[in-house]
């Protein structure tokens, strides 16, 4: 069954590239959308018992190297959801470019699916590179100068990150003789039991650095605003919505809690980095003059919350981190889809040249409000619950300083997002925008769907939480 998550998009890539470009361009968006929805359904049902006979019937040579637990399933669902949104935003240009861009979208999806399913550090590395390579090209696909610069910056920093991860892998391999998560964990447990000391400090430091670069966490976030803001709209949705989470936050969570458990120094480092990132992202966002840059800095800040919770590592904090990953995927894709709509209708995302768009683009304006409330962590939306969980976990662990930073910065978040909302959507209509019309259907429908999802999850969260705790996940 896990094999399907790699094979279905792979078949899609072949289907897209076999016919002539002009024919493929006609059905490309539908095909990719269909694949994403199919994968989403697969992910949502992957933990159910109905898949058991299928798993036992089809045993491929590498079936046992892939596995889907509930955390993977949540990530797979998130990936499928955000890719659907990115696909709905779409690409402009001639047929050939459209088809290639959508193929790369599918490759990126496959790479991320691989990351969340494999349980071996070397395979993780290869899938990370697949994701990264497709992202470099997707960022630069419009061949704008800023986008090329952003892509190259991402390329260099990603190269440094993968080098750090590789060296860390090599040290682990030297000590353990294997890179499978289970083997590493067993070796560490043996060492802790007094069976000889494993010195993995260097590799831990390198893992933290490499994954924080990939996640765009604060001192290593230099590439993120450039790459995310200059990328084509659809790619911004994908990058901010899910790539930084899978390549960074997911791996940090997975490694910190299933492989390198009981490493207090590394945990503290993660928490400090997380808190720093929250602050840097929030204050960075205030200073920006471009809607997409504000949103990119906000991603830095929100990743901080996830890393902070991952560093704390109590059950409640982990729950909060996972829920926040999903929430951030929802509201950040929503906001970037709306940024795409604004860009398409007005031709700019500069804050000074926008204003009062709600009059002409009511759907975009009001769904943005939902995204904003969720990002700031206010009650009727899902963002409230994940932030509540994280901050509660911090208080319960007596981490007062971190809790106060997290709480205080969420007020700053509300501040800069309100500023964004006021400059773009509320107030007086900016001169020269009188002819403005609502964005095309695919954008408004996507935004509406994401906004509905955010509010429904927000309203139903207590019920969901209860169900999850009944099922033994909490």
């Amino acid at each position: 069954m896990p094999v399907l998550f790699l094979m279905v998009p792979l078949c899609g890539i072949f289907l897209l590239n076999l016919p002539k470009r002009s024919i493929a361009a006609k059905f490309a968006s539908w095909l990719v959308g269909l694949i994403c929805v199919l994968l989403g359904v697969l992910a949502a049902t992957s933990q159910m018992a109905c898949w058991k006979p299928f798993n036992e019937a089809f045993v491929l040579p590498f079936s046992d190297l892939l596995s889907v637990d509930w955390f993977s399933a949540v990530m797979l669902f998130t990936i499928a959801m955000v890719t659907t949104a990115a696909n709905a935003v779409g690409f402009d240009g001639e047929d050939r470019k459209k088809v290639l861009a959508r193929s790369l979208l599918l490759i990126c999806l496959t790479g991320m699916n691989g990351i969340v399913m494999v349980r071996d550090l070397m395979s993780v590395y290869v899938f990370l590179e697949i994701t990264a390579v497709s992202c470099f090209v997707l960022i630069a696909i419009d061949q704008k100068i800023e986008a090329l610069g952003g892509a190259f910056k991402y390329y260099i920093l990603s190269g440094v990150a993968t080098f750090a991860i590789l060296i860390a892998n090599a040290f682990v391999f030297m000590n353990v003789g294997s890179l499978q998560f289970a083997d590493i964990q067993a070796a560490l447990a043996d060492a802790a039991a007094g069976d000889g000391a494993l010195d993995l400090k260097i590799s831990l430091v390198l893992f933290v650095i490499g994954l924080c670069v990939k996640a765009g966490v604060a001192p290593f976030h230099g590439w993120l605003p450039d790459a995310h803001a200059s990328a084509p709209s659809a790619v911004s949705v994908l990058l901010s919505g899910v790539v930084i989470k899978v390549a960074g936050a997911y791996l940090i969570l997975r490694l910190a809690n299933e492989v390198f458990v009981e490493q207090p120094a590394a945990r503290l480092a993660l928490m400090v980095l997380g808190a720093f990132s929250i602050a840097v992202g929030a204050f960075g966002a205030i200073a920006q003059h471009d809607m997409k840059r504000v949103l990119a800095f906000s991603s830095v800040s929100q990743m901080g919350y996830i890393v902070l919770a991952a560093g704390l590592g109590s059950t409640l904090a982990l729950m909060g981190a996972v829920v926040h990953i999903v929430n951030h995927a929802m509201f950040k894709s929503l906001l970037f889809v709306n940024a795409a709509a604004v860009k398409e209708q007005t031709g700019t995302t500069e804050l000074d040249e926008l204003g009062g768009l709600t009059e002409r683009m009511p759907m975009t304006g009001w769904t943005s409000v939902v995204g904003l409330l969720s990002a700031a962590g206010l009650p009727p939306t899902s963002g409230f619950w994940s932030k509540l969980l994280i901050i509660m976990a911090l208080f319960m662990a007596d981490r007062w300083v971190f809790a106060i930073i997290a709480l205080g910065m969420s007020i700053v978040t509300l501040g800069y997002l309100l500023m964004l909302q006021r400059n773009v959507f509320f107030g007086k209509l900016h001169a020269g925008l009188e002819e403005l019309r609502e964005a095309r259907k695919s954008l408004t429908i996507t935004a509406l769907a994401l906004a509905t999802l955010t509010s429904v999850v927000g309203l139903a969260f207590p019920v969901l939480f209860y169900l999850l705790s009944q099922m033994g996940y909490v």
Partner: protein
Amino acid sequence: MAIDSMVMIMFVLLALLLVAVLATVVVRNLLGSAILLAVTSTVVALILFVLEMKLAAVMELAVCAGLVTAIYASAISLSKPEQDEKRNVKAENRAWILRHLALPLILIALAVLVVFLVPQVPIDFGTAADAAGGAAGAASPTVQTVLWDLRMVDILSLALLILAGVLGVAALIGKREEK
């Protein structure tokens, strides 16, 4: 005796590698730098060969020393900067060398640091590895079995990566031609 000659060979190869790396960094000419990188790759391939990783050595030689150098050569020829006739080449070279004067100092300091910090770990060599395999009784798996039986996912993901590379290059280059 055999082990001693092994150590000597390794020592020479590692020294060669360092020289090649330094030359790659310091040489001013871009094409020369790319060719020296190929030399570095060749030395790495030799080291891998001595370490009895024959398949990896062949790959390194063919792909890194061959293919990558071809990529660099075409990239350099496609992006040749406009040559300015009046440039003072001598002064530029001198400035270049001055700028890179810090490098040897950093490297020497690092080398001294590493020699003092790194603990001694014995590496069993050549015959010793065979002896260990014989003593254990079980034949250690070959690369082929590891790749095709134990790490099948890597084959799949590498194929996917190559696909990503091909599509990516097509997506970025294609638009230029039509201009």
